């Protein structure tokens, strides 16, 4: 078995293992072990990747494998990773691992819950290892569909509505996406020859200009919906608010990244001319996203809504930076994906813990949690500081790379957008500090909360895993940044060539 397919196989084996367990206790142990193995494998992959690169392998993707599974349309199970995919796999395995521990106490239908959760995770892993568009899409759908069940069954509040809304909007995105993918497929051999879904093969040909212009919006918006691109972001607040903790973590932490990843790996890489020409439209939308999400977060009362809007702002930053189409900005975009994935997962984990204790998410009903549950409160402050871009935590690295990169764009329009986007860091500080001030500091508002317990050991595992990752990236970003930067070369080269045309 090759090293990459294991990332799909291990979750499936875990699911099979879970099928043989009974009750919550066995189930969660199997899930934790499975995802622990997954995490170790991700680190192993990272080292193997470095070793491979150090050995002088300069291929765009390493560990490539391809098996045709549907010959008549030349659909392959083609896998391979570059530095970006490795980074995303690492992110995913960390978030999933933490997610398992934050749902340690899922009382109803634990088996089904963990199965759906891990199924979702395997979809995400599969997405990141695929280099065949169709297989990629398949895994993408595999990741989206369990979400409906997870929110609809284990959610809270207006869960049916939210689950339906989320699924329908994402499916709408998928519909655009499949159109775009087929468009790519049927134009993958403009000079004759066999049609292909393989990204690397398609990247070699130059797709006719009018075709690019036609299909780019489909692909970009299709992935953008998942990446919470304004104005297709409204599934995010409702969906997050209703989703159970681990699902929010996984969804905001990883699934939303699929959107950004797809945007550059598929839409921009394969259709560079169109990306150069139509980029400005989306740049305006993302600039709006950034500022709008940040302001939207200020006026919210519900913790999850605050975080959902903040995700809109941060994910807007990802696509914003991608559209700057230079290496530094795109490097920043991917760092931002990882950084946001970690910190938003931490946020949702913490919100879940707080909600599990106080049974409210309204910040005005709580207060002074710092004294009652110091561990959780400190973790919340750390997450908040990461979110507002404090140096030494991952957010700073990502945001600064984005800003410096975006500023490399000489054009006045891009610069103005950059400055507007920069201003979001102030607004971010406002809403983070507002929550921290109301929720954690101040006197204890509700006397019943005085006796609430602090974090349990499994919650601590979940928090510490994420905090360690955030700090690790924040303190020593160079290896990650360089790994991503180097892998961006083919994409940026294509985009630059398109700009000259």
């Amino acid at each position, binding site marked *: 078995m090759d090293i990459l397919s294991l990332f799909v196989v291990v979750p499936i084996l875990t699911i099979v293992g879970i099928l043989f367990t009974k009750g919550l206790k066995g189930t969660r142990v199997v899930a934790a072990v499975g995802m622990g193995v997954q995490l170790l494998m991700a680190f192993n992959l990272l080292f193997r990747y470095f070793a491979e690169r150090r050995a002088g392998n300069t291929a765009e993707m390493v560990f490539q494998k391809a098996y045709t599974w549907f010959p008549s349309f030349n659909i392959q199970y083609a896998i391979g990773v570059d530095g970006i995919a490795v980074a995303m796999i690492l992110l995913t395995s960390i978030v999933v691992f933490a997610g398992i521990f934050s749902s340690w106490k899922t009382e109803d239908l634990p088996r089904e819950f963990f199965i759906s959760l891990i199924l979702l995770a395997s979809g995400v892993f599969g997405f990141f290892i695929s280099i065949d568009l169709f297989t990629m899409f398949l895994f993408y759908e595999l990741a989206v569909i369990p979400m409906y069940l997870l929110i609809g069954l284990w959610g809270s509040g207006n869960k049916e509505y939210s689950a339906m809304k989320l699924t329908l909007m994402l499916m709408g995105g998928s519909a655009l996406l499949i159109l775009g993918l087929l468009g790519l497929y049927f134009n993958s051999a403009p000079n004759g020859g066999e049609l292909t879904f393989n990204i690397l093969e398609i990247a070699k040909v130059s797709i006719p200009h009018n075709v690019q212009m036609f299909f780019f919006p489909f692909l970009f918006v299709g992935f953008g919906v998942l990446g919470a691109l304004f104005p297709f972001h409204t599934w995010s607040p409702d969906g997050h608010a209703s989703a159970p903790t681990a699902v929010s973590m996984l969804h905001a932490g990883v699934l939303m990244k699929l959107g950004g990843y797809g945007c550059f790996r598929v839409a921009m890489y394969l259709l560079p001319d169109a990306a150069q020409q139509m980029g400005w439209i989306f740049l305006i939308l993302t600039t709006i996203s950034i500022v709008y999400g940040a*302001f939207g977060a200020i006026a919210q009362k519900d913790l999850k809504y605050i975080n959902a809007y903040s995700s809109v702002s941060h994910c807007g930053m990802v696509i914003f930076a991608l559209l700057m189409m230079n290496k530094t900005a795109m490097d920043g975009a991917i760092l931002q994906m990882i950084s946001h994935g970690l910190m938003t997962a931490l946020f949702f984990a913490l919100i879940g813990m707080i909600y599990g204790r106080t049974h409210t998410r309204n910040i005005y009903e709580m207060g002074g949690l710092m004294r009652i549950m110091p561990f959780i409160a400190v973790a919340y402050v750390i997450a908040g500081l990461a979110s507002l871009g404090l140096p030494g935590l991952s957010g700073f690295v990502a945001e600064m790379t984005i800003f410096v990169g975006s500023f490399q764009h000489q054009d006045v329009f891009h610069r103005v957008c950059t400055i507007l986007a920069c201003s979001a860091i102030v607004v971010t500080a406002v809403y983070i500090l507002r929550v921290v001030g109301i929720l954690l500091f101040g006197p204890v508002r509700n006397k019943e909360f005085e006796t609430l317990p602090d974090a349990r050991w499994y919650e601590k595992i979940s928090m510490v895993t994420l905090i360690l990752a955030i700090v690790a990236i924040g303190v020593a970003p*160079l290896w990650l940044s360089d790994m991503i930067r180097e892998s961006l070369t083919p994409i940026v080269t294509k985009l630059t060539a398109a700009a000259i045309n």
Partner: protein
Amino acid sequence: MDWTYTLAIILLPLATFLTIGLLDKSMPNKLAGVLGTASIGTAFLLSCYTAYQYFFVHGMVDGAYQKIVAFNMEWLRFTDTLHIDLGVILDPISVMMLMVVTTVSLMVHIYSNGYMHGERGFNKFFSFLSLFSFSMLGLVVATNLFQMYIFWELVGVSSFLLIGYYYEKPSAVAASKKAFITTRFADLGFLIGILLLSWYTGTFDFTELTQTTAIGGLAMAMPMGTSFLGLSIVSWALILIFMGGAGKSAMFPLHIWLPDAMEGPTPVSALIHAATMVVAGVYLVARLFPIYAIAAPDALTVVMWVGAISSLFAAIIACTQYDIKRVLAFSTMSQIGYMMLALGVSQYSEGSNLGFTASMFHLTTHAMFKALLFLGAGSIIHAVHSNSMLDMGGLRKYMPITFVTFGIAWLAICGFPGLSGFFSKDEILVAAMQHNTPVFIIAVIVAGLTAFYMSRLFFSVFFGKNTHYHHTPHESPKTMTIPLMILAFFAVFAGYIPFNEFVTSTGEPFHSHFHWNVAIPVTLIAFIGMGIAFVLYYKESEIPTKVTKALSWVYTTIFHKFYIDEIYLFVTKKILFGIVARFIAWFDRHVIDATMNGFAIVTNYVSVSIKGLQSGQIQKYGLIFLSGAIFFALVFIYLFV
């Protein structure tokens, strides 16, 4: 010569922060205090050693003190030329700042052992203090703009954490929030400034940026082209960078956070909001001084006027405040304005760079006497359990050591001849006089006002009415009085350090002599200010009340700090967060989300309305089928045949 040991100065507090912070409750309070103090003490000794090595052993090369990069490490790469390094730079101003920061920090650490005794978050306090020391030292030794920005943010956050130390007090939480957000807003300017400057010059590195050529120009090509509102790009970049500095240094109009920041424990106010962090803005301008002076004189003019206005503005407000710490806070703002002003009137060229040296000189002496004032105030508050000057009076009898040390600091800040403040203030005034008359006049007025409000504070606290106290105030413990005495020593003698020998903008020493023609009149003005205060406040009298009554609306306006806070609050709370944010939240739910829901509703509606056709009744199907068949039969038979 190997300078890598300087790294330890910065890393020691970091290690302390991590140790105390992670162990937190499992560490005895005493140990935490000792550990924190010991580590900063070691850093202090190392700084002394570094200063000695730098100034006396290494000495001058080519007649000037050179910049030494003691350590540099690539931390994050943006492009081929732009990368963030973390390193240690040694030059006169950074060595000077190392000394200032470690000295004050050490004093504050010792003092806090007594002041914070028995607080619940004692360990937390010490870990935050170490975090702050680490960040501030990192800022001081930054080799490049971005490293400075990094530590700039870190000092901001440590300031936030320390102001909000009493996190259960809503006013402290609000103050910490305000401080952070205001400085964050200023940092936005700083960041954009960095982006602009680095884009045109292609580097963040201070050494490269401020490298000068033999003929007195900059080695680096600066974007001098006019860009916007008649100022060159580099001017704009530097004005934006200065905006960051103004935010941290509480310059008008970004000063609003500083008075509120006094909610923090008093040692914090002494360390962060008097001696070190707030002068970061001055230090930043000093760091980039060659660019300001050579490439962007417009920006330097901005610095000068902002400094002058701030110093006057704050001095006026300070005259009306009753909270002892707030008076000191406004005084800090006023004195930092002085330093900015001094930088603003300086030039890079030889002979006219007195302002730069004066500014750095004043920075040092001010750090000493202002830290002393704050620590003294802390001692008083510790004894009286109140911040308000109205609750104090006649304290000289109860707290002799505090009285004496506070008195020394008072005389120093008023510019009493022979004490440190006298010398540094004099240099600033001379520099201002040589350069710009209106600014000089403002500076003189501020000197008089300073003498007045400080004397007002001093007299009404230690003399004045004999207040009746619930608990008889008593002198503070040794841990608190010893730092006071040490700082008093510095406050007296720091003025005798020959700054012009060591710290100059070019690195080359110059000769300066004392200007009696400025010193004498200004000292007289200061005496007048002290005299008025003596008359009004030495004994309890009715005159102050009468004066305030006579100037009622002027007084109220000043007392409310010219309503600047209210204007800010209106713009941010009411307009931005109230109207704009709410509107966006509403818009999102009711327009955008409603549109998305609208699609769903329309789909639903369509499906409901065509559902009737699918009635499940075979006869209806039959009828429709038949009608369809007839229709097509008609069409095919009579239209196409």
